[in-house]
């Protein structure tokens, strides 16, 4: 407890950093659930594909060596944006392809929900094994684009440029997505299908296109998460998505699955709870603490902190 008090700010900042990555991935689960009432368990692999796209863009396309670099800030930013765009394209395309191959044929035939689940798990395993065979089963490391420099002090914590970059870009992406869903025409289509797919179709909304768009949006967010993960952790491997996927799904449920803002709240909260829990009782209890927190919250708010809202009618 003493330790938590003395290191409160440091644990908060690092927890928020990891939480932002959880939150970005959680968006993918939440969007698809909101529209289709389907848990896309292959979303962890959408993220994994993004990490490899970012890594290969940096090492193969730009020919950067893995490990430490000495490059100017401007070119570092350029590289990060390029890697980000590549990861977003790759993750977005993977998510749409998944929808096309693993879900759409089932939906057309009116398959029961359980079948979607099996299809999702199958697609997830197939993708991760595909990368295991292609890239091998060893970790591969990213070039160190950001050299952590302390920007300012928050209480006793030194906040680095890397942490600021991750938290700010995650929040900006989420606000942008939230506004897109709220304000744009396409976003209105997404909300309409989430609320009542059949009525939406009668009103002229192209359901298949909206669903594809939902997967695409989730994929894009996973792509951003992939680059940020690459900056923070610095390595990737074929099964990198597994644990993160489970955590992100937890974050989505914690915040209220189907609710975009809930994903943000859930992700950040999960990152914090894990860190505080590790500090108070020991790192090996980190997951126990996180899931106990989840259960306690669900006991009092069964629909999550902010509740399910993507499909709820708004006046």
């Amino acid at each position, binding site marked *: 407890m003493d330790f938590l008090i003395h*290191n409160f700010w440091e644990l908060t900042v690092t*927890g928020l*950093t990891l939480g932002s990555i959880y939150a970005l991935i959680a968006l993918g689960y939440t969007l698809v659930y909101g529209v289709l009432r389907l848990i896309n368990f292959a979303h962890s692999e959408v993220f994994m594909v993004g990490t490899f796209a970012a890594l290969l863009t940096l090492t193969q396309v730009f020919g950067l060596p*893995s490990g430490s670099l000495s490059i100017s800030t401007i070119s570092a930013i350029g590289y990060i944006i390029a890697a980000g765009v590549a990861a977003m394209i790759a993750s977005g395309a993977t998510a749409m392809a998944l929808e096309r191959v693993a879900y759409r044929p089932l939906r057309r035939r009116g398959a029961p929900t359980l079948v979607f689940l099996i299809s999702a798990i199958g697609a997830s395993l197939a993708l991760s094994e595909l990368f295991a065979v292609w890239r091998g089963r060893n*970790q591969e490391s990213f070039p160190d684009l950001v050299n952590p420099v302390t920007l300012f002090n928050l209480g006793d914590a030194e906040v680095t440029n890397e942490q600021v970059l991750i938290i700010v870009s995650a929040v900006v992406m989420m606000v942008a997505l939230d506004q897109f869903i709220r304000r744009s025409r396409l976003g209105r289509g997404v909300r309409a299908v989430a609320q009542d797919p059949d009525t939406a179709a009668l009103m002229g909304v192209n359901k298949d296109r909206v669903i594809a768009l939902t997967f695409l949006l989730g994929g894009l967010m996973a792509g951003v998460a992939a680059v940020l993960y690459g900056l923070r952790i610095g390595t990737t491997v074929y099964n990198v998505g597994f644990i993160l996927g489970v955590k992100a799904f937890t974050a989505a449920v914690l915040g209220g699955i189907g609710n975009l803002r809930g994903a943000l709240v859930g992700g950040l909260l999960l990152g914090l709870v894990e860190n505080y829990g590790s*500090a108070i009782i020991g*790192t090996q209890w980190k*997951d126990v603490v996180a899931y106990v927190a989840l259960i306690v919250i669900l006991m009092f708010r069964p629909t999550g902190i902010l509740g399910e809202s993507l499909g709820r009618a708004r006046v």
Partner: protein
Amino acid sequence: MRRGYLRGFAVIAGAATLILSACGGEEKTTTGGGGKKCDLALGFFGALTGDAANLGINIKNGAKLKIDQYNQAHPDCKVTLKLFDSEGSPDKAPALATQAINDQSVIGIIGPAFSGESNATGDAFNEAGLTTISASATNPTLTQQGWKTFHRVLGNDASQGPAAGKYIKDTLKATKVFVIDDASDYGKGLADEVTKVAGNAAGKDTVQQKQTDFSATVAKVKSSGADAVFYGGYYQEAGLLVKQLREAAVKATFVAGDGVKDQGFITAAGAKAAEGAIVTCPCNPPEKVSGTFFEDYKKANNGAEPATYGAEAYDAATIFLAGIDAGKTSRSDMLDFVNSYDAPGITKQLKFDSTGEIEKANVVVWSYIVKSGKIVADQEIKQ
């Protein structure tokens, strides 16, 4: 449409079967030789795929080199190496052990590679009377289970741990040591041994395998002001941990055990963060073992240099092959032969005590240091 799917499925299933059977098949060359039993095989048991596959592959290559040399000398009576890929997982190992036991041609096992899987399979091998010689499992309790068949050709963590502790205390002269383990049989066992010698004045923590973010642990180390950090665990987590420690400007010397002695550690950490890290290992630097092993290995593996445990695996294979050469063709004869073996190997004098440990006086522990992206031999830690 439906028929099309079915056919596609059949093709995929067929291809999968082919691939699987191709994986299972090994170059088996059985030739009848005058009176001798010539369809014998040695089993390799360890991870060839999975997170810690590098260590398993080193072991397989070391053993394979010895077997190939033996087969060249005995073209009329060849020995095959059968591969049992456990992925290093204690959950998958028992089924594989049964498979190895039921294969009557397998007369000895080189492995199991890791402590967890050794623990999970020891009873089965012991009941079947199938001799195992591990080139890498170092948990001290493995030889205290009463298994007659378990042997290892290297010192255990009870010798590595104190040596690592001694290095931290005497060579690094560290007084505030922070000890971290990954809760595995191996990592915790080693960390406990180090703690006994070097203490954990700065504190201790336990992390999880497959964890990638260590911010809470890093915060603990940082606020403790430790001057040395010992990590008991494997290279993937160790690499990320040391990277995150250095990013948080923790200057403490990073010390770890043999599970970290792999290039994958530097890949994960980056050369800059890994620089100066110390790795202890009850294994000899392959370039410093006796004989022509280093050159032979390079020749057999397209110029790749032998890595951790390659030489120990070579020694393990040497013992079994000497047994086969001496006409020990049943599992019980082989067990007796291995128990009474006493001859110099390339890493050390190979002689087991009654529990299957290398005799204490012959155990060798080395420290290695990371220098510009490579793990190089530092010094032998004399006990």
